[in-house]
């Protein structure tokens, strides 16, 4: 069987890789079971082209089989001196790698604008801690409308640690009341 370099067919989906692995897993198990049953039986090597009268061209086949090219994730991978006479495995591995391309591309697109901070929506009654600190500082800044006071407050906010804020903030319990629950 000649190893041909053919490009990825379009429309492959992410589940195909998983399904292919599942099928392969079942075949491995079936193979193991068969081997257990027939461990004393000799298996002669099967001709690659049974029924054909043509003698295989050893040099050509070896040359073709010695190289493996795989497209995965938008990249061409070339392996030399692998898979002697293992053409069928080449097809299998290529199919498995091909199925992963779409997932790879989708993942790449998503990562392109990935944000290092795990921004996410949350529970509305309570604010994110970082934003809550900002709001509290801002409220203190509002107390002094004139520039010198505002400046002092701003610098003071900078110097204070989080622990000191408790003394200055309004009681949080009034801010963080949950919506009333319908307890039965």
């Amino acid at each position, binding site marked *: 069987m000649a190893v041909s370099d053919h490009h990825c067919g379009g429309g492959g989906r992410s589940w195909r*890789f998983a399904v292919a692995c599942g099928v392969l897993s079942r075949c491995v198990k079936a193979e193991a079971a068969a081997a257990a049953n027939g461990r004393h039986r000799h298996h002669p090597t099967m001709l690659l082209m049974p029924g054909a009268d043509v003698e295989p061209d050893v040099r050509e086949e070896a040359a073709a089989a010695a190289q493996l090219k795989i497209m995965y994730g938008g990249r061409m991978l070339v392996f030399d001196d692998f898979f002697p006479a293992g053409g069928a495995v080449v097809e299998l591995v290529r199919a498995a790698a091909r*199925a992963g391309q779409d997932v790879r591309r989708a993942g790449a697109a998503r990562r392109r*604008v990935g944000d290092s901070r795990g921004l996410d929506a949350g529970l509305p009654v*309570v604010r994110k801690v970082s*934003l809550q600190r900002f709001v509290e500082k801002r409220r203190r800044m509002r107390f002094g409308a004139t520039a010198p006071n505002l400046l002092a407050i701003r610098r003071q906010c900078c110097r204070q640690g989080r622990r000191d804020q408790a003394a200055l903030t309004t009681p949080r319990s009034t801010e963080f009341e949950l919506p009333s629950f319908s307890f039965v």
Partner: protein
Amino acid sequence: MGGEVPEPRRLNRALSFDDWVPDEALHLVMGHVEDPRDREAASRVCRRWHRIDALTRKHVTVAFCYAARPARLRERFPRLESLSLKGKPRAAMYGLIPDDWGAYAAPWIDELAAPLECLKALHLRRMTVTDADIAALVRARGHMLQELKLDKCIGFSTDALRLVARSCRSLRTLFLEECHITDKGGEWLHELAVNNSVLVTLNFYMTELKVAPADLELLAKNCKSLISLKMSECDLSDLISFFQTANALQDFAGGAFYEVGELTKYEKVKFPPRLCFLGLTYMGTNEMPVIFPFSMKLKKLDLQYTFLTTEDHCQIIAKCPNLLILEVRNVIGDRGLEVVGDTCKKLRRLRIERGDDDPGLQEEQGGVSQLGLTAVAVGCRELEYIAAYVSDITNGALESIGTFCKNLYDFRLVLLDRERQVTDLPLDNGVCALLRNCTKLRRFALYLRPGGLSDDGLSYIGQYSGNIQYMLLGNVGESDHGLIRFAVGCTNLQKLELRSCCFSERALSLAVLQMPSLRYIWVQGYRASQTGLDLLLMARPFWNIEFTPPSPESFNHMTEDGEPCVDSHAQVLAYYSLAGRRSDCPQWVIPLHPA
């Protein structure tokens, strides 16, 4: 083969050559398969593939630190280069989880730091990390560490940072955003500047650490590769020399405007030529012009911590047509979002946080509603992430998002509870349309008010959940029946957070058992049973259930910074774990399990 699943006949033929496939070849091919889900599928084919996957795996994320044992991870993936660990429930970001809840980094660092000889990147999120933990990590991996990300972690001080700065000279990324760090002086930054010459990313945003501008300048001088700096507050006028030196800088956040009405001082600030990610603290109307000269180049703008009015937002955003990421408070208003829709055609991520609710603050009167969301949906069709706190919403707006934002993979909507009147409830049809049309959605959050979504709407969410893996739902549904119908449809949901819902313990348990992919659920605000034991209906092998009761003890529990933990409603956390029950529960967390 045209991408079809291989036929068993061909596979049998392939397997007859099994002895001809060298391990080296499979090793090499596996190394190029990068998607975690593909890796997981490949590792289940047979023992040989499992072994080769394990040897070639470079990155692993442990989504919850109590789901697996550190030793098991080490045994399976001995050549890891990068590890991410997540700890406390996400509710910790909102002050709902006390600091001593757990999620200790020590067991992981003790077990993994030395044996994983290839480890060079560590990312911990919402975990408790001590100075001793970091010292152990540095001792074992300091010479190899390239990335250290401590994200919203607590428990360590600048002493640990000094050690990192002195010993980790190959460090390219130091990420400390929103960590609570005990400040024992700014020497750590000076050490970092002196010892490191390859730093690319430095982030201590929202940490309140004090640093000297001269040390930043020295850092910029020694690390020509510095691309990203996000720092705690520092007057912008003190950073003029730093900006002159940091020529490669692209990403900056954290400078602050302390002087009111003195633009002269800030006029001298000249940002580096490649700057395109920006977040400035306390920027007001008078300080806005600072960014006008390069607003065209901005790709990311963080205005969450500014003093801008709605009008100011309109003015700035109109000058930023190339934004990919925008983060604002809801003061931007619908008018500001209309400007976003008209101007920012390339926008990918939009986050609209909840601002101050004090009615006395004039500039916070904006508020976001269906008008703004619709304008953004129509105008910014490349959006992949939307998170919005809104004052009003309609089904039509959600339908517009579904119609125009086909690339959405993360959508989060919170309906603020201060407005008495909402135009169009329930939102069943809008949610249905959004989920049916946004087929790429992976994360979905919907926090409404009672009556915001009926049982039918909840059923739609389940039915059209598609590939969504994470959901947060608040104040949704009308009855237990709605929750069950929701659960029946969620085939791919892995992580679920429920808050302020009316469901019974029994319904929660039945729902958990109904969702085949669910591995983690956090609940607060539910209808407790007389005995509290209906939660045990969800008991099953490898499934941990932890209950935090609503008791006076819980109410009086103090967080590390001395503030009362104000939230006294019961919480339920349940998750799959290969590690068995937690051995480090605090006294106020009660593991539930059958007798």
